């Protein structure tokens, strides 16, 4: 290869690698159309942002709930088997068996609407109308004692609904509250007088057979 051609080749390569930097944009992809955004952007926030137009009553919600939800969540939201409990549990959060329901634990009603709309009923997502989702949400709020029997939930009144446990949540404070877990020199010698076994997994006996600990002959 002549010297000239080598130089020309390098220049061409340099031009190639520089191309993506033009104007700071790569230029891949295309602009999303409004219809496409509308089809996917269904998320709802606590301030009501993202709620679609519509409404639904506690009464309609009860019928829909019994048809669409009760098999797993129980007729009264008590949860069948290990499916999530949705109703009750107030006053249990400090107990040995806390029941974390919409009424006892969840901070925002919007979470209920958002999740039903995006993922419920389980195995048949996106099959409910917006009015259906309003109605089922209204029914669950009613069962949790948050709204009255004749309540109609709508886009307009949604953000007025407050859940009782909202104020009990606070941002991660581990770096302050657990500051003592940062230590310069953890103990290496004679760190404690004794170490006695106080609990054994074997006594609980819930490990699946296939994976159980191996007996040594």
């Amino acid at each position, binding site marked *: 290869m002549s010297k000239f051609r080598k130089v020309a080749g390098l220049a061409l390569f340099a031009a190639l690698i520089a191309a993506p930097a033009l104007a700071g944009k790569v230029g891949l992809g295309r602009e999303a159309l409004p219809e496409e955004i509308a089809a996917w*952007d269904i998320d709802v926030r606590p301030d009501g942002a993202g709620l679609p137009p519509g409404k639904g009553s506690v009464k309609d919600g009860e019928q829909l709930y019994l048809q669409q939800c009760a098999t797993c969540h129980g007729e009264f939201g008590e949860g069948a088997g*290990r499916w999530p409990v949705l109703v009750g549990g107030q006053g249990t959060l400090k107990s040995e068996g806390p029941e974390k329901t919409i009424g006892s634990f969840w901070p925002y009603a919007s979470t209920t609407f958002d999740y039903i709309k995006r*993922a419920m009923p389980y195995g048949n997502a996106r099959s409910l109308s917006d009015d259906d989702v309003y109605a089922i949400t209204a029914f669950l709020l009613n069962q949790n004692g948050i709204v009255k029997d004749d309540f109609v939930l709508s886009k307009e009144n949604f953000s007025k609904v407050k859940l009782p446990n909202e104020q009990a949540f606070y941002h*991660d404070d581990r770096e302050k509250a657990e500051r003592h*877990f940062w230590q310069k020199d953890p103990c290496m010698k004679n760190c404690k007088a004794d170490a006695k076994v106080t609990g*054994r997994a*074997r006594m609980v006996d*819930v490990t699946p057979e296939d994976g159980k*600990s191996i007996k040594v002959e």
Partner: protein
Amino acid sequence: MDQDPQFQKSRRGFLGGLGATAAGLSLAQTGSARSATKPDPVITEIQDWNRYLGDGVAANPYGKPSKFEKNVVRRDVEWLTASRESSVNFTPLHALDGIITPNGLCFERHHGGSPEIDPSKHRLMINGLVDKPLVFSMDDLKRFPGRVNKVFFLECAANGGMEWKGAQLNGCQFTHGMVHNVMYTGIPLKVLLDEAGVKTNGKWVMPEGADSSAMTRSIPIEKAMQDCLVVWGMNGEALRQEQGYPLRIVVPGWEGNMWVKWLRRIEVGDQPWHHREETSKYTDLLADGRSRRFTWIMDAKSVVTNPSPQAPLTQKGPNVLSGLAWSGRGTIRRVDVTIDGGKNWQTARIDGPVLPMSLTRFYVDINWDGREMLIQSRAMDETGYVQPTKDELRKVRGLNSIYHNNGIQTWLVRSNGETENVEIS
């Protein structure tokens, strides 16, 4: 009889450092090889594999582990969840070594089953508070400049969640197996966000999955711009279906639930969304009835994988104690190991790459005389965080938090080598 020099070294290294306990251990066994009385037939008789032709090259177009490794599989705990489509299984940590988790053994967690997605029908949308909402095909994404390869651990926030009230499951696969470590191939999320142009009031992003749970989480824009990736490759090949094929988000050091799989959309907003997986789930209920939210970082943690209940000791004498350590805050600086339930500790030997927010492998070469041992490991990360005991953790967090149990694990090794998950005083 001559002693293996490596063995002598290891005896001095580990057992010499443990004071009174070590003295007893190191005296019990010498390193002498056993003698045989009869010739070994696998040596003296010609074996089939030595005489006959093996498989041809096309026998396994995609190679699989030897059939003798059939027990090295993911396992689930059926009673944990209501259905297998919204459930979890566990990485067999006790049967693996090094730091990389093989693709087929990475634990699974789905909220609406693992969908089969045709990559030609997969799209990634970026919308919300951006100058120009964009749609990308998989081909578009793979043409972006700035492709990177990075190793990160992914740990489910609920890893060890069954152990808050006491020792429950007998095996590190079940107590610690909701973690895996993979080298990802993809592009920084920042590249895509810059392409769309984040508006000045864009403070949060929300990745969303294409699966039937349409998984969503809120991530602050600083983290999204700092080190999050959008990836299509794991350990050199395409993502496995159960790990998000064809596209997932990587959120280094932060809880696995945020690493949305089957990623189809990223919305930019000015507030967090407070969706199901960051309110009713993945918040930490404390003893006073209040709850921490946005507990994204995975605290430093470690576990001895060998010996463990599924991988007991079977021989006295030289044995390799091994384990894994990791931290969501950076690199592992040190791992200490005790065999007497925490009275005395010895710093373990770390081997292999020590990478930020990656599993890190440690070893202690021991010489076991058959005495009972209470084995623990304690990780320390580059920020000086020291993995707490379970009791220290319970003192701050109570028993109901489910998530973020990074307390020190204890294995009781009995005199016959059987190993149990226990708690100690």
